[in-house]
Every structure is written in C-alpha cells, then in structure tokens.
C-alpha cells in the first residue's frame, strides 16, 4: 500500500532523511519510531505528498504522492503536527467542511462521538484544549473515509483516557482494513498498535521488525533479578552465555541477557543447589530495546 525506497531529503546542508526504505502492506499498522529530529515527520510528509523528496521513490497505492497529489488526497487521510484551523471555525463546521471535500465521506457525527467531540460541536477552534484540537485533527484525517491514513504523533496532548479511546479507534481502523502509518515516540502506543515498526535515527532506518522482534533482537531481551544476598559471584554471572551485564542496584542483583542466559542461569542454580531469593525474570520492554537501538 505504501512503498518508500531510498528516500533522501535535505534542508540546506542538514540531511533530514538519508536513505529511508520501508513498505507497508494493506491493512497494516506500521509505526515509525525515533528520537526528535530523526526524520520521521519529513518521511511521512513525503508520503503525503506535502514535501518533494530530493531523491528516492514514494508510492501510495501505486501512485506518486507529488505527481498524483490530487488522487492521493482522496485515498490518504493525514493528521499533521503543528497545523491549525481558522480560529473562529466551530468544530461542527470544520467536520462538515472537510466531509464536503470527499465523494464518499465517513459519517462525521459518528466520528465526533467516537472521539469525544460531540459535546464540543459548537466550540470555536481557538477555544478548544490541546487534546480536543488533536482529536479534531484525527477526525479530519478520517472524515474522508480514507484507505490509508498518516497519523503524526497521534496521542500527543491527550489524557490517559482519551489516549486509550484513540488507540481503540486506531484498532477499529485495522478491523476496517485501513492502512495506518503511525509516527510516535510513545513506546506503549507502538507496542500495542503496530504490526511492524521502523526505528529511524539520524535519517536512517536502524531497525525494522515487529514489536516483539525488536525487543527480541536487542542484546538485552531478558532481565533476571534477585536479592543480592545470594552466594552467586558477579564474575560467575557475567560469564553466563549471552549475558550482557551484571549490576547491583537497590539491593538486587540484575543480570541482562538473552533466553540462553536465562536457561544457563536456571541450571546454574540447580548445579550449585542454591536459591535466588525474590527471583524475577522479565522481558525487557520496547523502551529498553528502543534505547538500545538508537543510542
């Protein structure tokens, strides 16, 4: 559905995007994750045809977003960072206006209800809170009944409840077969929603995998921790296969490593016939994996 090949874009001398490639299947929720200034927004702006790439190819449903801009706008919904509406336009008018731009628009009333905007239909844009503006822009991205949608920092400014509701809305998009390109730096959001994630750092894709795959590929996928009073030596633990590090913090010994580390640790306990008090084995989160991939 969306294909980006070797995309380059520089602003003056600064390379914002430096050879990004990925492809998004129809009906997939594809995440773009990365630190501020990594080139995420520039990438999706090229996908939406709002910027012209210096080189490389972008196709959405087989169309060039710049050359076929008119047709792209009919099938691609966009929620951008840092855009506004006319200050005195009320929510209802904004939804009606944008719905009138499309041949087969979605039901804007249902969308407004879904996004909790139904109580604010007569409020002027300038009087909306940050979260309400954000939800209005999500509604505007979806009001055309798009086949694909670009959501740039979807839940920025939303309170926890609105965030959950918005995630549920995105999940329902998947159920409808809508392709979603999601820019985020909220790990929980990426982990929960995305089928696959591209991690972008300094204009390049540094990893592309499923959320579980990203966590798994990191050198520190598992974390073993237990009370520090066990007879096990730090050197002994560090020598376990796949072990990435041994630290003692807050009275607990923490060993990071892979599945192999966990297996070896369990047999080590059995062999030495010792127990590790308060033993916990946890998966590292996408957060840890992300830091690992972008550092």
């Amino acid at each position: 559905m969306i294909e980006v090949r070797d995309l380059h874009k520089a602003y003056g001398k600064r390379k914002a995007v430096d050879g990004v490639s990925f492809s998004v299947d129809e009906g997939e929720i594809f995440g773009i994750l990365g630190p501020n200034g990594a080139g995420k927004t520039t990438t999706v702006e090229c996908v939406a045809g709002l910027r012209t790439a210096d080189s490389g190819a972008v196709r959405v449903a087989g169309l060039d977003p710049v050359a076929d801009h008119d047709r792209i706008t009919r099938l691609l919904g966009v929620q951008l960072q840092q855009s506004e509406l006319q200050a005195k336009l009320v929510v209802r008018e904004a939804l009606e206006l944008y719905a009138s731009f499309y041949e087969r628009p979605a039901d804007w009333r249902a969308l407004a209800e879904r996004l909790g905007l139904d109580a604010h239909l007569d409020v002027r844009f300038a009087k909306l809170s940050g979260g309400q503006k954000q939800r209005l822009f999500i509604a505007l991205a979806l009001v055309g009944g798009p086949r694909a949608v670009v959501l740039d920092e979807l839940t920025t400014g939303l309170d926890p409840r609105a965030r959950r509701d918005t995630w549920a809305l995105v999940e329902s998009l998947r159920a409808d077969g809508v392709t979603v390109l999601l820019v985020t730096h909220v790990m929980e959001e990426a982990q929960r929603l995305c089928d696959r994630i591209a991690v972008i750092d300094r204009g390049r894709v540094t990893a592309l995998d499923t959320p579980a795959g990203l966590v798994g590929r990191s050198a520190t996928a598992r974390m073993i921790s237990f009370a520090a009073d066990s007879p096990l030596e730090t050197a002994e633990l560090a020598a376990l296969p796949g072990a990435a590090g041994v630290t003692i913090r807050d009275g607990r010994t923490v060993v990071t490593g892979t599945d192999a580390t966990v297996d070896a640790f369990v047999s080590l306990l059995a062999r030495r016939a010792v127990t590790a008090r308060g033993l916990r084995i946890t998966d590292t989160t996408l957060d840890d994996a992300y830091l690992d991939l972008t550092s």
Partner: protein
Amino acid sequence: MASTTAPVSATRAVLRTEARLFAREPASLFWVMVSPTVLLVVLGLIPSFREASPDLDGRRVIDLYVPVSLLFALIMAGLQAMPPVLAGYRERGILRRMSATPVRPAALLTAQLVLHAAAALVSALLVIAVGRAAFGVALPRNPTGYLAALLLAVAGALALGAAVCALCRTQKIATAVGTAVFFPTMFTAGVWVPVQAMPDTLRRIVEFAPYGAASRALDEAARGGWPSLLAVGVMAFWAVVLTAAAIRRFRWE
C-alpha cells in the same frame, strides 16, 4: 484556483465557510463596510463642505469626498483587513492542512479575495447611496464607466494586499508593512486632500499611483466622460504587476 477535479460543492463550501468566518470579524466588518460611510457623514456635517467652491470648478468638498470615502473602503478591505488573514492562514498551517485534502488551498485564498472584494463593493455602493440621499451628491453620470473604474480599482486594491502578504513571511510583518503602505495609499487616494483639490504638479504625480489613478478615473466617469486611457492604463499596470508579484512570490508555507 480550486482543483478542477474537486467537487464544485467543496469549493462552494469553502466560500460559504469563509463567509461565515468573515461575518465573525466585527472589527474588519466595521472598518471595511461602515467606517467609509461614517467618514463621509462626518465630513458632510461640516457646513462649509456642503457649499459650492469656485476653487473646485463649482463643486462642493463633499462631492469630492464620495470617491475618497469609496477608495478608503478599498484600502481598508485590501490593505488592512485581508493581508493579516491570508498571512495568518499560511503561518498557522491552515493552508498546509488543506493541501492534504482534495481541495487546493488556493480555494481558501480565492474565497478570501472574493469576500473582501464583495465587502469593498458593498461598502462603495453604501457610500454612493448615502452621499446621494444625505448630501445630494450627484450619481455618476457615466455609470458604466464608473463601475468599470471601480472594479479595476478593487482589483488593484486586492492585488496590493495580496502582494504585501506574498512578500511578507509572517502575519506580524504583513500587518506592519500593510500599515506602512497604508499612509501613502491614503494620501494618494485623497483622504487628506482630495486628488482633484491638489496642486496640479502634485496631482499629476499622484495620478501615477494606483489610488491616484483610480481617483482620476472615478472622477472622469462621475462627470459623465469615460475614464482616460492614462488613468485606466496606470490602474491596469499596477493591478497586473502586483498580481504577478503576489503569484510569483507567494509561499504556501
């Protein structure tokens, strides 16, 4: 221009929405639609302005202030009201958001031009009507010539505002430049001294400015003749040059 493939109803919806928003700006409405007539009425209340003056070919000061007030409406619409709106739409990403829809953001700009032109024309007609009803100012003797001159003047007024907006990157700068250009346009439109009452040399110079030329063209049509080729030529020149500058230099973001 709106995309040719966008539904006509969408372009119309943009115009309707912008008209509603226009109606929600009381300050703009007052300055464009009401203040020119207020200016005329205030001047008309001065008794000596209602007396024929030999210095003005037997005309009264108030006779000269009908076209002045009318041009004042055009200045307000084109230079004071419109540029901050257009610059704000660009600066706040409103044009950009619209460029991600099937409707081109040019539809927004077009709607704003149409609305400010309409407001200026309505205001101009109000000035003429009040001038006739309250002070007995004669209606233009050559209505066709007068209307043509008026329309050309409106085109020039909007082109000037659009050029200011195109050449200024931010709303703040556009407002500041608009104000800086405002005073010379007021002078050349004859707000302080009507163009026809200016000393000959000064008048000839002023008539090369867009509003000075408009003043002359309106005056000629009001007296029953056709606007002179020179006045029309000067107006057309400015309208074309300013429009070209606006189109060439306008940045969408």
